[in-house]
């Protein structure tokens, strides 16, 4: 139980640590580049639609990926097809032109002129925002791609007004005049369309109109939402199930709109720098999205933020927020644009650094970081007075060229949580067994955590166990939990007693001023220990986020002599079965074979084998005694041959039997025996009938 609590607690600590790590934003890195190549993979040499093709090509372009898949020929083919078709909608044309803008397919000028005429007709008759957006967007794209086509709108002010007519009082837009619901991402589309109108206008747009537009933007920014970490984002107020757009695509739409607008009005529209920085942080805070749409929205929006002419966000990031005192780590800070390119010359100032969560004064104040050209980072050696702990560092970015301050958004002061870790010394560690009534020390042992030595103690239920030690920081101060209290991150000191039967008990070691001390009164713990006498292993755990030498150490064994368990005493809990053991090897199955029969000694068997030959020998000797001879053996050639064949046949059959015994099976044996038998019958008949006839003759004679 206690162990589970502990692990849950550690998980919580980790989660918090991860959440806090997210406070530090990092610019786009190579992780995005490799992710882009994984995400945007064409099927059979092309993407399923021109929109997807554009998203892929644009992402590769922004990230500067050269090794992109070769889709030019197939994609250009479908671009020309779309542009040439009279049934293409403005949306199709828009995507085709966007792809063409990157791939520079060879499109004939006449084709553009035809498209421009039909688009202008759509613009003048359009009623919905999307029609305006796609047709004006297409015209603006043609303006960049064709030198001859006359794309300028003669009635720019009229178009501007009809788009503006769809705006709402809170800065959001409607998709059409008969659609009463307003949307934030529609506002982004409207800004983009309006930026297109201003760019395409044949005459200057009225400044009063631009003034109302500025008003709309500032109203829209009133509805911006904020995360705790300083990231800003836009979200739809009304969530429509069928067309839901998340905060990412909504924010991306707005960012594209306002940056486009800021570009064409060349500085007339001011955007609040901290909000721009907040939006950039929002996009960077997502990490690497796993979806192509999200990925494109993130990268494209960051690119528009980086390339806008009004305020370019600069991101201050720390390669490491955990600094080790024992390794003499330097404080390093990098300042980059969102896409990771270098910043203009600037100085990073450490305004102050203070212990997180405490009111004591700051430990470092207004220090300028030195700039290192090689690693392109700003660094500072930590002063000697810095001790371990969790700190908040406040940085400020000061641009060398004050003119540039209007162009770059640095966001004022940036707070970064920094952990400074170090080696914590354990001192005056001792473990003692005390007598309960008098409190006198029965046995006291010093503990040395550096060595491997363990102590052996013994105690009964009337005694107490006392463990005490001190922790000191590198600066020589007592290392106390209250120094570190920051939410749940705190020093953890546990003492664990584990019985031989794996039943363990965990105690939290308390802190009294300078010392850590725990006093275990075994009398009160008898029931908790389930009356289990015997040897207990003692383990001590000391750990903290800023402690580099956190340890879990077996410090010794204690032989406990506890009273017998009464009848109703609680039983020790069963040890949980290790869930992984299910997948482990099963117990080996041993097969039971019949034990072999007892065999006689080999010599005895051989002796009897010899003995069985004795009658044979006797038989042969008997034959000799009887005077057996071969006189009756046929003397003429033919019967003699048959006689020999007869005996050979019998010998062959007997040999076959031996083979049958040794290796042949019954069927083979019978087959061969069939032939041999027939042969034997034949020769046997011949020789025996010859003998019979000769003996009959002998008799008759």
């Amino acid at each position, binding site marked *: 139980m206690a162990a589970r609590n502990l692990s849950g607690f550690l998980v919580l600590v980790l989660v918090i640590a991860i959440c806090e790590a997210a406070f530090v934003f990092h610019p786009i890195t190579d992780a995005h580049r490799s992710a882009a190549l994984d995400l945007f993979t064409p099927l059979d040499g092309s993407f399923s639609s021109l929109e997807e093709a554009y998203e892929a090509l644009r992402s590769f372009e922004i990230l500067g990926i050269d090794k992109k898949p070769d889709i030019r020929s197939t994609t250009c083919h479908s671009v020309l097809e779309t542009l040439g078709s009279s049934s293409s909608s403005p949306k199709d044309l828009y995507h085709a032109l966007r792809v063409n803008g990157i791939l520079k397919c060879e499109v004939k000028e006449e084709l553009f002129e035809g498209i421009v005429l039909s688009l202008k007709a759509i613009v003048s008759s359009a009623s919905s925002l999307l029609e305006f957006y796609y047709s004006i967007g297409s015209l603006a794209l043609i303006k960049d791609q064709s030198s001859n086509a006359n794309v300028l709108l003669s009635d720019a002010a009229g178009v501007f007004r009809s788009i503006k007519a769809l705006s709402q009082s809170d800065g959001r837009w409607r998709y059409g005049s008969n659609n009463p619901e307003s949307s934030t991402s529609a506002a982004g589309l409207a800004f983009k369309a309006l930026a297109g109108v201003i760019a395409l206008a044949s005459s200057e747009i009225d400044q009063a109109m631009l003034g109302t537009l500025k008003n709309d933007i500032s109203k829209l920014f009133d509805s911006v939402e904020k995360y705790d970490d300083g990231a800003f984002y836009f979200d739809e107020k009304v969530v429509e199930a069928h067309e839901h757009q998340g905060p990412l695509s909504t924010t991306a739409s707005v960012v594209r709109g306002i940056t486009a607008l800021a570009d064409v009005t060349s500085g007339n529209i001011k955007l609040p720098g901290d909000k721009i920085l907040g939006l950039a942080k929002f996009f960077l805070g997502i990490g690497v999205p796993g979806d192509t749409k999200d990925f494109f929205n993130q990268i494209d929006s960051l690119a528009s933020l980086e390339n806008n002419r009004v305020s370019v966000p600069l991101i201050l990031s720390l390669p490491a927020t955990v600094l080790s005192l024992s390794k003499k780590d330097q404080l390093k800070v990098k300042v980059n644009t969102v896409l990771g390119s270098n910043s203009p010359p600037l100085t990073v100032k450490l305004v102050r650094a203070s212990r997180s969560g405490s009111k004591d004064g700051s430990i470092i104040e207004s220090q300028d970081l030195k700039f290192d050209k090689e690693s392109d980072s700003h660094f500072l050696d930590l002063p000697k007075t810095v001790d371990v702990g969790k700190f908040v560092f406040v940085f400020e970015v000061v641009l060398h060229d004050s003119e540039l301050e209007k162009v770059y958004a640095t966001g004022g002061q940036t707070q970064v949580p920094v952990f400074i870790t170090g080696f914590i010394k354990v001192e005056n560690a001792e473990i003692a067994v005390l007598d309960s009534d008098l409190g006198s020390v029965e046995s006291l042992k010093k503990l040395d955590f550096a060595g491997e030595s363990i102590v052996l103690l013994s105690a009964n239920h009337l005694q107490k166990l006392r463990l005490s030690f001190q922790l000191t920081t590198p600066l020589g101060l007592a290392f106390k939990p209250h120094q570190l209290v920051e939410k749940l991150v705190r020093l953890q000191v546990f003492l664990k007693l584990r019985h031989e039967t794996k039943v363990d008990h965990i105690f939290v070691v308390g802190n009294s001023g300078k010392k850590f001390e725990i006093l275990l009164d075994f009398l009160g713990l008898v029931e908790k220990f389930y009356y289990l006498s015997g040897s207990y292993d003692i383990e001590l755990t000391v750990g903290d986020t800023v402690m580099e030498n956190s340890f879990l150490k077996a410090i010794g064994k204690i032989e406990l002599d506890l009273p017998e368990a009464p009848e109703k005493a609680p039983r020790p809990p069963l040890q949980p079965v290790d869930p992984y053991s299910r997948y482990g090897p099963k117990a080996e199955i041993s097969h039971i074979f019949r034990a072999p029969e007892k*065999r006689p000694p080999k010599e005895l068997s051989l002796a009897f084998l010899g003995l*069985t030959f004795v*009658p044979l020998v006797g038989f042969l000797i008997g034959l000799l005694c*009887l*005077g057996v001879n071969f006189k009756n053996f046929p003397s003429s050639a033919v019967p003699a041959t048959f006689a020999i064949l007869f005996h050979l046949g*019998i010998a062959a059959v007997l040999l076959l*039997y031996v083979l049958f015994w040794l290796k042949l099976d019954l069927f083979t044996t019978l087959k061969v025996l069939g032939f041999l038998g027939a042969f034997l019958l034949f020769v046997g008949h011949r020789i025996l009938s010859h003998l*019979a006839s000769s*003996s009959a003759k002998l008799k008759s004679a």
Partner: protein
Amino acid sequence: MARSTGKDAQALFHSLRSAYAATPTNLKIIDLYVVFAVSTAFIQVAYMAFVGSFPFNSFLSGVLSCIGTAVLAVCLRIQVNKENKEFKLKLESIYRHKVLSGISADAERDLPAERAFADFVLCNLVLHLVIINFLG
């Protein structure tokens, strides 16, 4: 009394021996063969009594092979023995058709020893096929 019994036994033994000496040689060979087979069987039984009958089928095969061949040899001896009139008379009926066909009845009345020997060989081969099969 005891002496006379010994003498009588001796006399009996002697007369038996002299009577047996008159037996034809080929019958003596068969007798010797029977003795050989039975004593081999006896040795195997003795082995079993000493050691145990563990490969019981092997033991049975060995003993039955000996007993079987001894029995067959005895059968051979019965047929070959010329004094076995009874056996011959029985056979007479079998050969009656030959008597009728004009062949000398006297010559045919003796069962050819070769025929009996052929039976003996055939039966032994069949017996040992079974024995080997059973030997394991």
